[in-house]
């Protein structure tokens, strides 16, 4: 697989990790006015994100076994992108709804986190096995495919954490920051589609070359 296509996949993994951590940090800041910023609120938010990831990883693996290409990636990204972009419309409502239940702050924070964070983080988690699947199919090396995809995603997570806490919060505030995170995921979905169409072009080029029996270079069309 040529370098540029592999690079695109790593970028997709990077941005997914970036957006997820950004949403997590902004998400805890959404919880804080209702349940504070005690260690329980952080624990609730982090564990919900991890739960979403764990379910997402497993589900993504099953999806990757069936079909691993750019279109699936774009579809998987469309859901969290939309959910996070539309957060200003339902975020407050959910917070007030859960708060009105009058639960203890630990349970309340957990319930609210589940409502707000579980589904988006699940879909973002599903991306990773699909990316690893694509890489493994191309290179034939499953170990390094998984390792490199995870690595790219985690580097993105580091960047997302630092950028959000150091800069984004003080530049745009919480709700605008969340919308920006959503649009970042939308851009990521577009990158996935770009990857998909390029890959199709390259594959059909190779197919033509095989069928017509000629030698051809089919890179970067």
């Amino acid at each position, binding site marked *: 697989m040529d370098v540029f296509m592999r690079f695109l996949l790593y970028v997709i993994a990077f941005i997914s990790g970036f957006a997820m951590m950004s949403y997590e940090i902004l998400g805890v*800041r959404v919880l*804080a*006015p*209702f*349940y*504070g*910023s*005690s*260690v329980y*609120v952080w624990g609730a938010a982090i564990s919900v994100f991890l739960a979403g990831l764990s379910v997402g990883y497993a589900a993504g693996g099953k999806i990757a076994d069936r079909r691993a290409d750019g279109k699936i990636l774009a579809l998987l990204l469309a859901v969290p992108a939309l959910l996070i972009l539309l957060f200003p419309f339902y975020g407050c409502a959910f917070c007030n709804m859960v*708060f009105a239940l*009058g639960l203890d*702050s630990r349970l309340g924070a957990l319930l609210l986190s589940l409502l707000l964070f579980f589904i988006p983080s699940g879909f973002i988690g599903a991306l990773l096995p699909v990316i690893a699947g694509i890489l493994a199919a191309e290179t034939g090396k499953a170990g390094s495919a998984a390792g490199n995809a995870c690595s790219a995603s985690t580097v993105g997570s580091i960047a997302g954490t630092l950028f959000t*806490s*150091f800069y984004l*919060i*003080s530049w*745009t*505030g*919480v*709700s605008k920051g969340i919308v920006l995170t959503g649009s970042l995921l939308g851009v990521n979905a577009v990158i996935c589609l770009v990857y998909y169409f390029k890959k199709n072009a390259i594959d059909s080029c190779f197919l033509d070359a095989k069928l017509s029996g000629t030698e051809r270079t089919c890179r970067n069309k």
Partner: protein
Amino acid sequence: MRRVYKTAFVLFLFCILMPGYAENAQDSPGFWENFVNFFLPHAEKRRILLRRETRYFMVTVEEDSKGARHLVFNPVKGSQGIWNPKKPDEIISNYCKYMTLFMTMIERPPERVLFIGLGVGILPRFVGKRFPSAIIDVVEIDPDIPDIAAKYFAYAKTADTNIIIRDGRDFINRAEHKYDLVFIDAYNARSIPFQLTTLEFYRKVRAALKPHGIVSVNIANLGKPRFIASEIKTIMTVFPQLDIYVCPGGSNYIPFAAPERGIERAAMDEKAVKFDSERRFSYGMKDMLKTRMQKTEIENMLENAIILTDDYAPVETMK
């Protein structure tokens, strides 16, 4: 093969037991703590009485050369509370003295008092002593702090004091009572937690105040003038009648807010003079009242300020 299992089992036991042992051992500073303390950047060399890692902070209790004890979360930012066991009733921190100015503003003894943030319990002790029948609610997020305050700062709560371990915003969101006095003095190692600085928070504080209630906030000067100005602007939006007192050297700004002004300023001065002449407190209140900020001073300060909201309160990075 059996040796491998034995070694694995011993290592396993070690991993399980060591944390428990370490936790007990770390309370009393040993050789290493004193060695490290020698190199820490303190203004004066202090003896470390306690070093404990709580759920939220790395807390040290330090004794300075005059025998006063300091509660420290972050060595660079100074003390959270100061108390001297040799003079147990004396208030050492300036900002605590300024917060006691409420004594000149109240007409009758308070029935219910709220403290957000315990620190070492200087003010709860002050209020508890002078108004023993008042119901005092102390909200503190860190469960270790009341324990440390009791052990090292002799904070003994009155019979009617409730210590509630909760985030201050969580508490005020569901406050069940209305208070005569509210003292807000909550800090983590870096700043005030943002959800305790916002417009929505102060609206809830106002809702938890009785009509002639008074709120006092400790705004420490941590080198972020725009934050101080924004916080004052935010409080003023909810409490337009704001009296702001400034500690010596501008180290703290102490606003006093009341939804309805109870006492006239002249009456406050009278009371202060009375307290001073009776030597009621070891410090003079009349001079402290003089540090009240003028209207023009406040307007100048608020030039660059913004109103902090739950959505936008970048307190950690504001300058």
